Structures are given as structure tokens and as C-alpha cells.
């Protein structure tokens, strides 16, 4: 889950989603807008180990990312 924050630029967040997940620009932009407008968005899902790695990578980019178990 990536959370909205007032510092990260919309263009940068889009670029990060493309870079980290290999998403095409429209998908990356849609996710970025979800984060921006709804306050948070699920950007990736999978095994816990895989998601811990994704969160670590997103923290390296300065994004505000957390892990959640689907309920």
C-alpha cells in the first residue's frame, strides 16, 4: 500500500511505479492518482516475502509504503 504524502511529486511517483513494477505509463498514472485522490492505493500484491522486498524498494525511493494482509 502506498500512502499519499505532500512532498513526493506526482510525476516522480508515476515514474517510480513504472521503474519498480514495470507498469506502462497509463497504469502507473492511474495508481498515482488513486494515491493522490483517495489517500492510498494497493500497488502490488503477492507473497509476504515478495511484498517485503517491494516495500523496501519503495522506501528506497522515498515513498510511504506499508504492507497489509488481505482481510
Amino acid at each position, binding site marked *: 500500500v502506498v500512502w499519499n504524502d505532500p512532498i513526493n511529486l506526482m510525476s516522480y511517483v508515476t515514474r517510480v511505479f513504472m521503474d519498480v513494477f514495470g507498469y506502462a505509463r497509463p497504469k502507473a498514472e492511474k495508481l498515482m492518482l488513486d494515491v493522490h485522490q483517495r489517500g492510498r492505493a494497493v500497488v502490488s500484491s503477492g507473497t509476504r516475502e515478495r511484498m517485503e522486498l517491494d516495500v523496501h524498494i519503495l*522506501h528506497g*525511493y522515498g515513498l510511504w509504503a*506499508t504492507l497489509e494482509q488481505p482481510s
Partner: protein
Amino acid sequence: VKVSGKHGRLRLRLEPVEVQLLESLFDQLEAVLAEDDAERLAEDFRADLEASPGAAAAGRDTAVDPVRRRLSPPAFPDDAGAEAEFRRLTGTALRELRDERIAACRADLARGGEVELRDDGSSRRWIQVLNDLRLALGTRLGVTEDIDEADIAEQDAPQWAVYYWLTATQDAVVAELLR
């Protein structure tokens, strides 16, 4: 600063004063990263959890440097055990990653004010390092979603100017990358 992208080659042309500014911002960020406060950070998250679940993700005033908190946010804001384990596994790597890219960007600057971002690795580390600097400065300044320029205290004006310069520079580089 001038950002230009021609024939797939991205270039930053920095004035000497801008090079000096970046070097001094790198010094400040390195000092923050060097603080050995893993224990305090862990304590801090435990306190958050006891206060209310989810409080860590919401952010609050604490004894820990807010910049440090922002640079390594909790992965498991509602689970102290999982969070401690995650930090143990990734905390050092995250810090080293930031130190390494500062060092690489410093090396780029040492070759003069003209920085050529010739591959994905160099353009990535520059947008990341500019973002780290913005996160650090923006957190200190208390940036919010809609800043009213009238609310900026006079003594903070120079810092805000630096923040806006970093923002414009990062945005220009990212725009070229998204082209």
C-alpha cells in the same frame, strides 16, 4: 540549473553556486543518516502502537528526528513484532543505499557543473537523491498539501527557496524521463 534532453542524452547544467548548495545539502543529509538511532526508532514505533494502532502511519511529534522517521517509515504500522523484524532485515541496507547514491552524485559533481545522465542508473540515482533532499527539507519545513505563501515565516524563506529549487529541478528531470 538547466535540464536538457537531446538524442536520448539527459544533461544537468549546474551553476557553481548550485553545485555548492547540493554539496552542502548532501553533508546535512549524511549527518542525519549517520545518526545511530535504530533503537530509538524502534522504541518510538512501539510507543506509537501503544498510543493507537495506525498512529505510526499518521505521523506525530516524537523525540526521534522526524526526517529519520520519514526516510524509513514503518512497513507494518500495526504490528510491532513484524516491524522490528523488517527493520532488522532492511534498516542497514536502506541507509547504505542512500549513502551510496549520495557518494555517486558527489562524484558526478566533482567532475564539474555539467552532469550527464548517460544511463538508467545515473538518472535514477539523481531523481532519488533529489527526492531524499526534498523529503528531508520538506519535513523540516512542515510541507503540507496546500502551502499558502503568505504563511511562510520570513526566516524560513531561504529554505523554502531551496525547497522549490529542488522541486523544480527534480520535476524537470522526471519530465524528461517520462517523455
